[in-house]
């Protein structure tokens, strides 16, 4: 399969890249790992005239804890996330997403920024990130703005990102003591699969062991990953136990909006939202208990 013709740029700073984007506008596409873009270009779904690689921009490669926040550069690869002790220690639900994404070859190339920016409803990283309440940093020639990841996705392939903006960083508050999160996905086979359903759940307990904050995020069952609001309402103010998780699962099922497609029918996906919600909550709780 042949690629369409394009000009290739490899700026070394975010400012340079922003300058190029402002110049080329909609004629340009950013490329990092290319695991999504290259496929779409070969299928002739996309044919950008200008391709701007951000792989040479070192300021996008960081993964640090800074004060009460974890900062992840958009160019960090999924393989880096898998190996990071910071991720394993603070953000295990994100680590589960990373470890279940694609194959080792894909993980070596794919970046966290790309997995968010391509806005696939079945993507592995957004549910975990949203469960942790992540924000994204968007930079253009005009300046920098931040946005909760909840508000970033607009639909399949569509985001709040303006044509002249680059997603540069993901920011996550260090989860408080007494909180836990988990991510579970299912597909037809065990790897290299488009998810049928994926769910990430997070909750934090107060000093009395009452759930004071909860986020349940569902993928594949709507035009974008989104929160199961009624499930969260059921959880907040209660003590965690299996019956509660079961109720939350039923509520999440009701919140989901799956459609029939060639991979699976809506009924199955809706039912699996319930199962995965329960399982992620259970895992999150186990993680909290293991902290004690």
């Amino acid at each position: 399969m042949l690629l369409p013709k394009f000009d290739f740029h490899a700026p070394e700073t975010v400012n340079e890249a922003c300058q190029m984007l402002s110049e080329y506008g909609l004629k340009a596409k950013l490329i990092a790992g290319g695991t999504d873009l290259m496929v779409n270009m070969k299928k002739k779904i996309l044919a950008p005239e200008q391709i701007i690689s951000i792989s040479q921009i070192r300021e996008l490669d960081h993964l640090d804890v800074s004060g009460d926040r974890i900062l992840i550069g958009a160019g960090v690869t999924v393989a880096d996330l898998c190996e990071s002790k910071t991720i394993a220690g603070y953000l295990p639900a994100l680590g589960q997403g990373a470890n279940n994404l694609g194959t080792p070859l894909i993980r070596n190339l794919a970046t966290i920024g790309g997995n968010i920016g391509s806005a696939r409803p079945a993507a592995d990283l957004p549910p975990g990130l949203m469960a942790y309440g992540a924000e994204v940093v968007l930079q253009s020639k005009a300046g920098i703005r931040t946005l909760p990841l909840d508000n970033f996705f607009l639909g399949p392939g569509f985001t709040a990102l303006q044509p002249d903006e680059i997603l540069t960083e993901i920011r996550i508050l260090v989860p408080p003591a007494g909180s836990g999160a988990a991510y579970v996905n299912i597909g037809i086979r065990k790897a290299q699969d488009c998810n049928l359903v994926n769910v990430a759940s997070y909750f934090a307990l107060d000093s009395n062991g009452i759930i004071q904050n909860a986020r349940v995020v569902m993928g594949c069952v709507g035009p974008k990953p989104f929160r199961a609001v009624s499930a969260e309402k059921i959880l907040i103010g209660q003590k965690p136990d299996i019956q509660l998780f079961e109720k939350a699962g039923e509520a999440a099922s009701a919140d989901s909006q799956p459609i029939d497609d060639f991979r699976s029918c809506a009924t199955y996906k809706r039912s699996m939202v319930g199962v995965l919600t329960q399982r992620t909550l259970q895992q999150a709780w186990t993680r909290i208990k293991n902290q004690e």
Partner: protein
Amino acid sequence: MSEYNVINSRATRLDAPAKATGKAVYIDDMTLPGMLYGALLQSPLAHARILRIDTSKACKLPGVKSVVTAKDAGLIKYGVSPARYDETLFCHDKVRYVGDEIAAVAAVDLATALEAVSLIQVDCEELPAVLDIDAAMADGAPVLHNDYPGNVCAEVHAEFGDVEAALKTCDLVRTTTFKNKRQDAAFIEPQGCLANYDLSGNLTLYSSTQVPHYVQRTLSMVLQLPIGRVRVVKPYVGGGFGIKAAANHMELAACLLSMKTGKPVKMNFTREQVFTYGRARHQFIHTMTTGVKKDGTIVALKHQCHLDGGAYSSFGIATVYYSGSLLGGPYKLPNMKYDGYRIYTNKPACGAQRGHGGVAARACWEQQLDMIAEELKMDPAEFRLKNIMVAGDVTCNDLNMSSLGMKECIEAIRDGSDWKSKKGKLPKGKGIGMACGFFVSGAGYPIYRSDTYHGTVMVKLTEDGGKALVYTASAEIGQGSDTTFAMIVAEAMGIRLEDVRLESGDTDFGVDLGAYSSRQTLMTGHAAKEAAEDVKKQVLDVLSKELNVPVSDMDIRNSFVVFKKDNVDFSGLRTRYIKEHRGWTDNPQSGPLTFTEAARIAYLAKGSIVGTGKYKPPQLGGKYKGAAVGTSPAYGCSAQVAEVTVDMETGQITVDNITDAHDCGRAINVTSVEAQMVGSVSMGLGEALFEEVKFDNKGHVINADLSEYKIPTMLDMPSVKPIIVESDEPNGPFGAKEVGEGAIMPTIPAILNAVYDAIGVRIHELPLTPERVWQAICDCQKEK
């Protein structure tokens, strides 16, 4: 310790260094000076009448060297079986599936060729399409081929014994219906070819094929080239599994374009084109009624099958026969009735794929046998053993089990999996299941009616005496056949494997029907052994005269001449040899007479030493219509135990272990036998759990890539315990027979039986996706 010096061991494959370092040359690596690139125009419609084809714009595009359609190609019909030649190189009156070939272009580069294809204008009248068996068989359904009303491509009706009468004598009669899904073999290397028509009028086609011989014949016939002008060469091939076992349109188009332009033309399928070309496993819908006695004796099988064939016949005539005949064994079955129908639909043609015709039938029956065993309260292993055939048995449809380690296979997997402590004792969600199967070691007859040898092999000694060169037209497609034949030659000549060099896959080397029907080890192996024995005899004859020792008192072992009786003075020969090789580094100074010395002396006496071998099966099988399909000089057989874990909430299946026994007669290269066994498990597991080629309502394949057509990943593969059973096949070279296809037979039903054991509900449709399993569990709970 093995009684053999070379075979029956674990040999490093001859192609290992080239493949491990990326130096092995495949079609995509090849270029020739002045080479053009070709591209195909394929139908975007599933069924349409062609009104007009206008190539003028394409022809005018700079860089385009030739545009060809049916006007240039002619309308010579071809296909696989001469009984059903129903394809032409390009469509002329109608297109019959999305992907049907209309025209081809050769240009200076691929981008230009593809652009030219887009400039060809085709005016069509779209016709209603039939996309499944029911639609194709409905009253008044649109007809694909006028010669085949009702869209019935082929039907088979056969009865052995008296099934209706026999069923009346049974204590238990059960009927089940089962369906699999259309498959893609998902070989690593998409089809590709490079055609070179030279100035003397000779055509050479390099192609990623399993069957250089059949491709050569099809090219000669369709392109009307004189005898002796066509040569087909197969470089390294990245798998075939049956799909590459016939000439394809692209090969013919590349040759035609090369003939038109006088330049080499290269063409490749994209992965999407691999799917739209099809020719892989059919969808089968089986209905089987089996009758047994109280004591578990199998009495009769009544079997009806419909195959969704796609738009053309391809291998389908053989397929519809095989899906009936391959149930004749391995159980004693005195009465069998089969009614098979292959139906044309407006989809890519289906053909032969590993386990040709028998895989879905085997899955259906082995699951049904387990259901019957359960009703009889018999252990599935004991039930099978009670009915098992043994060597020397002949099936009701005249298949002769000249060797059969089926009983040994069942015992091996039963004991190897600790069956007795697990069956019926596992917790909910865990299951264990078994199944058996058998397959031909090569089709008893060629695809076209002929008295041809099925394989010829030539062994020539280098004139310096150092090496034996083996020339065979057989097809190494990744399965390891080159190494197998080198081992057979080395064993038969008494020399070391490293003293053999082998060239294969070229029609100039002889006749070999190729890599299909699991035929090469037995058939090419026979020819290789005969050629090697011929050479050995010639060398020993010369030595006998030179040394005045009877041939019967000499042998060759490990590349040395062995004298069985008194010490023989061969110093004269050694002196002559050394004189001829003054200054060479490896002249023998002491020790026994080497094969190299003997080979050189033989050359000095007789000129080049060349041995030839050939193989053709004896007259096989019964006299009834269709008796030829399923006959073979030998049958391999397998049994497997699958152990699974099913997630009762999500329906996800994990296959934890497969214990796998296969009777391959005698293992030539033990590692390659095991590799075929494990590879078969992988392919069977994919069909059981994941794989299905899906279409939209316009006949387009909607998952024509390897991200949405889901073959197993390494993480899906269970731990496989291969157990080789050796039965010493009397019709096989050194007792060897097949492993490549028989080994897939038990995988699907073993998994089906294990899943039932885990969840308590039978599923009669593949693949066992999480959704299908979950649905079955839900339905079962509702019933309760």
